[in-house]
């Protein structure tokens, strides 16, 4: 499992790590019961403060996505709800892929598609008004 943290991004490193673990679970890269590296190992690998890893693991444990076992590390726990969510996200990926395919066939450039997605996500109310 490869994580990549960006110190220059405007988001705390522990949140970046949480997002990437969650993303890996949602896309099926990490499966129920999979073990994550220990705190020291991951901190050394990413060259970040061990507290960054502790904070990410603890928050994910609070959210029910990780189980921390004393001395033996962190394990991914996907309950039914989380598994359902994983399915939803994977389904969404397929639908978005289809939509993008169609838009390209309609002759839109990738940049235009990107802007349309961003506008819709950032200002849903405004783009509705324009319609």
């Amino acid at each position: 499992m490869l994580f990549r943290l960006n110190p220059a991004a405007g988001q705390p490193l522990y949140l970046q790590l949480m997002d990437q673990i969650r993303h890996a679970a949602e896309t099926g890269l990490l499966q129920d019961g999979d073990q994550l590296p220990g705190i020291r190992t991951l901190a050394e690998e990413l060259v970040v403060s061990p507290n960054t890893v502790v904070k990410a693991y603890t928050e994910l444990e609070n959210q029910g996505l990780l189980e921390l076992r004393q001395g033996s590390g962190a394990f991914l726990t996907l309950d039914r709800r989380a598994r359902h969510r994983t399915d939803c996200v994977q389904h969404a990926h397929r639908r978005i892929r289809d939509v993008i395919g169609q838009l390209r066939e309609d002759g839109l450039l990738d940049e235009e598609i990107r802007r349309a997605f961003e506008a819709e996500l950032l200002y849903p109310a405004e783009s509705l008004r324009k319609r």
Partner: protein
Amino acid sequence: MIDAPVIQTRALTKSYGRVEAVRSLDLVVAPGCITGFLGRNGAGKSTTIKMLLGMIRPTSGDGAVLGRRITDPRENVELRRHVAYVSEDKRLYAYMTVEQMLRFTASFYPDWRHDIAENLLREYELPRERKVRALSKGMRTKLALLLAFARRPDLLILDEPGDGLDPFGIEQLLQSLVAICAEGTAVFFSSHQIAEVERISDRVAILERGRLILDLSLDDMRESYRQIDVVFPGLPAERDFQIAGIRRIRAAGHQWSVFASGNADAIVDRARDFHASSIQVTPVGLREIFLEMAREN
């Protein structure tokens, strides 16, 4: 953090004649953390560290390291047993070999971790039989780090530890600092290498002309500090932008550059109210904050 701080100073001051090297410093360093101590050359970082270790006497004020008063000679001896210090000049005995230096240092510390020393000796590729005098600057730095790490101190203080190391050596250094912190040692290190500090620190204290001008968690920095570039077709008055969080507004024609330590959403809303034609929000890194704070002071 509810645990007692590992370093706490109160109005710590050091004057050399009429020059105040450190001015009324109130510094608190949390346990279990990596804290970066930033400042320009001559900002007072080394003077502060030497006072913390009892190597020079404060002109006024006081402080405690691991709960022991730095100005009390007896408590100072006690605190130095639990604090490891890697100085800027890496004080080592030039006539000893690496091996002799190891055995000599180990003899002072009953808790010496031979396993850590051996591992690092291999990892750092230090030649056992070479005399310290014949080591490169980078190797000397690594040896000094090794000697500090193997003591398993409660607090590790380093003064410009990255000096003399190549990028690969810096990477090894940062990894070692992360590893020792994971074992429960608090790390306090001074540097003017902002990128190093930004990667591994939990908190950063910035010293400028002997004064503490910023003490900040890097999570907060990444979460809240923003630069907001706005273009106004019709310029608003600056007083319309008296919003908490705005540290500074630089105006160039119709373009404003707002430096904010928080509240970016409210600032963007206000800019919209004044019909901004373009608003761009970018995260601010430690380098920008450092330069901005140095400019303000």
